[in-house]
């Protein structure tokens, strides 16, 4: 088992837990999607895996183990080695994680050299190779660009490229395609699937697009109000939802050629 989470409670400040009793497990190469509406705690769950809860959020109960290591006992140095290499993350808008006053190439090189002892030219060559894998044309041009000069879809491809540089064993993705329009979303989803399958990476994705969840996932978790309503095989849940909330969610998804209100 690559990742195993049991009885996880997450608390912000001294209040009652925001997220309660989360249990999940993930094998190598498996894709788990967490769906639920805003404020249901889905982002909190994946942030806790990377030890990156915002503010005074902390794990108040339960265990998180990654390849048999207890994530709660890691030192800062151990976290630094793990983050970005064995476990990496893709954000909703990768433009926000990039430094606006440094070129993409500068940041990419810095990131690669942090986790390896490559020379500048080796690191640049590596960056170009990975950007090409994400179907970005003119990878050299992109390295000399600033984040604001790229479109949303291109920025997102850069973010994914950086996240998969070291073939992470676990990839966390927080709404990786929600800010994109449908055609770009479709391309990114397919490219993401391809790179994940090629490198045998396990992935946990947060989304509220049930179509994307259905296309990508092996496992599915439905959350509402900080609790897990359903967890298990994605196909089973989508074809035979148990909770009323999941049923409502599925009924809300518009389909082309389906129901019409007018």
């Amino acid at each position, binding site marked *: 088992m690559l990742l195993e989470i049991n009885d996880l409670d997450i608390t912000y400040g001294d209040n009652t837990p925001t997220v309660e009793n989360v249990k999940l497990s993930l094998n190598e190469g498996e894709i788990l999607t967490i769906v639920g509406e805003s404020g249901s705690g889905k982002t909190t769950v994946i942030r806790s895996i990377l030890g990156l809860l915002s503010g005074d959020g902390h794990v108040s109960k339960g265990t998180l183990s990654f390849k048999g290591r207890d994530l709660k006992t890691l030192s800062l140095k151990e976290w630094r080695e793990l983050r970005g290499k064995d476990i990496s993350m893709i954000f909703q808008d990768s433009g926000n994680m990039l430094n606006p006053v440094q070129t993409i190439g500068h940041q990419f090189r810095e990131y690669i050299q942090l986790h390896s002892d490559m020379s500048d030219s080796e690191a640049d060559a590596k960056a170009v190779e990975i950007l090409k894998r994400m179907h970005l044309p003119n990878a050299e041009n992109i390295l000399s660009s600033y984040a604001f000069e790229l479109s949303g879809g291109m920025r997102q491809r850069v973010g994914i490229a950086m996240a998969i540089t070291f073939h992470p064993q676990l990839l966390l993705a927080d709404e990786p395609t929600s800010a994109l329009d*449908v055609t770009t979303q479709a391309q990114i989803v397919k490219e993401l699937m391809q790179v994940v399958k090629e490198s045998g990476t396990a992935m946990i994705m947060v989304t509220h697009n049930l179509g994307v969840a*259905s296309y990508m996932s092996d496992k599915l978790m439905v959350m509402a109000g900080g609790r897990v309503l359903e967890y298990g095989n994605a196909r089973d849940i989508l*074809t035979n939802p148990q909770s009323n909330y999941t049923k409502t969610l599925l*009924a809300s998804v518009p389909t082309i050629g389906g129901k019409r209100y007018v």
Partner: protein
Amino acid sequence: MSEQNNTNDCLMSIEHITKEFKLSDGNILRACNDICIDISKGKTTAIVGESGCGKSTLVKTIMGIHEPTSGRVMFHGKDITKLSNKEKRQNYRHIQMVFQDPATAFNPKMKVKDLICEPLRSFGIISKGEVEERAKELLRQVDLPEEFVNRYPHSMSGGQRQRVAIARALALEPEVIVCDEATSALDVSVQDSIIKLLVKLQQEKGITYIFICHDLALVSLFSHKVVVMQKGTVMEQLDGDKLAESTHPYTRDLLNAVFSVH
């Protein structure tokens, strides 16, 4: 498309609108290229396309935010792209707008009642003493509790804020409401409830909607007419219930980009 041939039904006609922007390198970007669309009274016209296809530029032209390079928009016998500032202000009584992100469309320091009634106060239609009563009435129309009159925008969820934005757009009893990606920032279940609300209001009041969106599945739920744009040009105009049968290659691309749940 028989109903569009009937000129009595046509409330607004967009005629040969072209909008060019001069770029800093001296080149010219043609954001809208000879666009002709008839907007039918009491119906929903959806304008779909990827980012950068010119749909927002077109809306800005309709709203008089900028002047077209050529072409006109006829509304009640007048070209509304050539109005004086004074006439433009009066014209906004008939055309209102709902934006993508209600959090940024509201002044965070104003209470809901003042936000909703600002258009009415601005046109001197109601006195200060009538604000609370009218705000309650408008909140009822968008299915929000009356107690919300004294709330601030930050203490509401995204869906509730979007309902308030709709209430504000309704305040002046406009004939046309332009929705620019009005549900794109919302979760599926919330999105569904907002669409149901828009449809209900249309049936009650005969409001005409111009709905800008990139999600074809969503517009197939409730549009009477769908206009597909790409790179500033109208590729296809078709009836909302015929969307799935489109044979146009670009429309097919957009349709195929939608992930379905099953």
